[in-house]
């Protein structure tokens, strides 16, 4: 019996059906705003570069950030998602044309939220469906305090730091890392903006160069940090 079933299953195939290759272009994919107000509008532009129309489905979810910067996506948006209002949940993108999706802030009774808008290419006959996440970081207030930096450790190649955001709003941490040797500046590294959610922390790894004995981090959104690297071991 088992042998017979095995023979029958020899023909088992998993096939993903054929269809036209899909594509979706989205901008912006990150929307951050302070001092948001009820009625405020945010615009997301979708573009279909293909020669055939594309149906798009829009869905809400939430995202969170782990300390290492990993974006954690939660597909199921709860009732509280009515903070944001979408005029449509489906739309059709005509060939080689763009569509603008207007998102309205229906309520502003929060301190900081992190919704995610999923742009789904809707075609059940496609073997692979495509989805682009648009991340929102919305805050009611502006930051009142700088982020606090602390050193987690360092080796010859990297300096690991942690930035803590004490504010009830999301912030972007960026700045400049300056490396010195015997008091002379030997390298300057730009730190690109990184989101730190309200009242949370995030870890970063910054590049070092051999021979540098001091690292100084300056940022408009964080307190300055001076790190002596002379020993080269973990601090």
């Amino acid at each position, binding site marked *: 019996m088992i042998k017979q079933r*095995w023979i029958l299953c020899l023909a088992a195939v998993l*096939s993903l059906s054929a269809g036209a*290759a*899909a*594509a979706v272009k989205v901008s912006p*994919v*990150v929307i951050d705003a302070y001092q948001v107000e009820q009625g405020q509008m945010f615009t997301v532009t979708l573009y279909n570069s293909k020669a055939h129309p594309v149906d798009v489905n829009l869905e809400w979810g939430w995202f969170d950030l782990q300390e290492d910067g990993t974006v954690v996506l939660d597909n199921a948006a709860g009732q509280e998602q009515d903070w944001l209002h979408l005029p449509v949940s489906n739309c059709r993108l005509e060939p080689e044309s763009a569509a603008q999706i207007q998102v309205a802030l229906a309520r502003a009774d929060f301190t900081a939220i992190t919704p995610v808008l999923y742009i789904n290419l809707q075609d059940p006959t496609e073997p*692979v469906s495509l*989805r682009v996440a648009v991340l929102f970081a919305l805050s009611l207030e502006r930051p009142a305090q700088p982020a606090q930096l602390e050193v987690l450790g360092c080796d010859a190649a990297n300096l690991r730091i942690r930035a803590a955001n004490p504010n009830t709003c999301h912030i972007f941490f960026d700045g400049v890392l300056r490396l010195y040797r015997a008091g002379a500046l030997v390298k300057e590294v730009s730190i690109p903006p990184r989101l730190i959610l309200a009242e949370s922390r995030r870890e970063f790894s910054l590049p070092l160069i051999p021979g540098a004995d001091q690292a100084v981090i300056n940022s408009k959104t964080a307190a300055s940090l001076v790190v002596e690297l002379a020993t080269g071991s973990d601090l």
Partner: protein
Amino acid sequence: MLARPRKNSPARSLCLAALVLGLTAALPVCAAAETLQVSFTVEPYTSLELTESSIAFAPVPPGSSVEQTVQAIVKANVTWELRISGTQSATGPDGSGVMFCSRIYTYDFLGVWGELGTIAQRVYVNQPPTDDQGVVVDIPLRFEADFNDPPGTYQTQIQLTLVPII
């Protein structure tokens, strides 16, 4: 060839005088020119595109596996991550909806074959921004047939999600 001599007409003299006056009047304006601050914003952008219109695994007996690669083109001016998820529901050989027991795996960023399910697998993480040509990414898939699925052709769907990293 000799150049034709020009005549000095009163109208020409008047025009010349007006021009000189105009230039003289404009001189202080030019000297007082100011620099203009120009601001612009480049929006964070991503694009996700499939290179192939179809994917089919080769027929395979239960207990065996077969591999296939999905290709996509990613364009982004921000750091990005690509995730893939799947489902255990499919259209069965008779066209009806079925749950299948066979498994689809993907090769994740840690170099491990992880099963495709509703929880997305991360296949590319912390990828740098691309140029305007984008980057072609290969997403290896492995199909492992199960004894509990009757023979036939099944159709299921997988989903690629492009996530900006901020």
